[in-house]
């Protein structure tokens, strides 16, 4: 008798819970996605009107959303699972960067030797300078690994950081910082030091600030977008291959 009643109970309650969950999840997804879009578009509009550098739509939207989550006591996990649609579009958006790359393929293939050389030097500088400076100041191997990998795109950096026993949370944080830093001050700083060619600016920002930098400079010109996407790919491949060797070598000195 007891078995039958408990079975009956579970049959009665289960469908109810699933429909409730589904409707609330659909609604919260809609609110999270629409809210994010509205905030982003509002900041983008403000930036166009006021033309101030720090009104970067990505950065300001992130800060605004963090404030809203803290204020309303919403956990990041519940926001993220509701805004999954935007995050899922990240992959196709990165694929779309192949278009500017295709348009400049001819000039790029002519200069492939100097491009690979400069990006190899860049990757070496990124890893070595970050590792040594962090070891000297903080003295923690896991943080040093995390910061050495901050210039490459998130999935690759996280994978390598895990493999080398780095701190993946700090890796993720430093990647975002490096991305915004290059995206915000990169073009102006490069123009200031007389690096004015869109090719050189694109390569530098793609190498230092990965996809966040590339997404930002894509709005300046097609040439920026092409060279930045190229640097994004090539730097990621180079770093994936050389970082384990270099980090193990450097770690033996400390």
């Amino acid at each position, binding site marked *: 008798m007891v078995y039958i009643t408990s079975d009956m109970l579970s049959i009665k309650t289960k469908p109810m819970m699933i429909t409730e969950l589904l409707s609330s999840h659909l609604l919260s997804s809609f609110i999270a996605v629409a809210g994010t879009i509205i905030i982003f578009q509002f900041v983008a509009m403000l930036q166009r009107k006021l033309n101030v550098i720090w009104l970067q739509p*990505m950065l300001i939207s992130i800060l605004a959303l963090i404030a809203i989550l803290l204020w309303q006591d919403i956990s990041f996990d519940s926001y993220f699972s509701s805004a999954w649609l935007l995050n899922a579009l990240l992959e*196709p958006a990165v694929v779309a960067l*192949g278009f500017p790359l*295709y348009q400049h393929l001819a000039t790029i293939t002519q200069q492939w030797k*100097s491009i690979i050389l400069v990006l190899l030097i860049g990757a070496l500088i990124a890893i070595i300078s970050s590792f040594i400076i962090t070891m000297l100041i903080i003295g923690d191997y896991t943080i040093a690994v995390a910061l050495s990998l901050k210039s490459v795109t998130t999935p690759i950096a996280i994978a390598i950081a895990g493999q080398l026993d780095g701190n993946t949370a700090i890796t993720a*944080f*430093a990647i975002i910082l490096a991305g915004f830093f290059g995206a915000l001050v990169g073009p102006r700083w490069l123009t200031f030091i007389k690096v004015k060619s869109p090719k050189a600016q694109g390569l530098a920002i793609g*190498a230092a600030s990965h*996809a966040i930098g590339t997404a930002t400079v894509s709005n300046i010109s097609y040439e920026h977008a092409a060279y930045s996407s190229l640097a994004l790919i090539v730097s990621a491949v180079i770093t994936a291959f050389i970082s384990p060797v270099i980090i193990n070598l450097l770690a033996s000195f400390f």
Partner: protein
Amino acid sequence: MKAFNTKVFHALYSAFAIFSCLALGKLCSNFAPVLPASLYGLIVFTLTLHFRLFDADKIKNTVIWCLKHMGICFVPAGVGIINHFELIKQFGITIVLITFTTTFILLSVVGLYYQRYAVDKD
């Protein structure tokens, strides 16, 4: 009406092109996990356009729109910083300073080197 239909057709065609390249990218990263699927997809997309498997003219407008708005896709992941407040409190300023300095060095070296040896030479 006809112009609208062409627009819709071009958008669908572009979505098909991008998603099929992404699917191939997923396949590649499954067999050779050196790069993430999206970067393989980017390479496949460039190659399919180069070898005219997809018509670039039909894709152009949609891609311009995507590139203009792609920044929004980084927002949800960026909000994830919220989970690392403890870490940031502990090492925050040092990490920020090191990241800024090294990013600055990297930007300058790559930019100056390429400008001097590749661009100015031409």
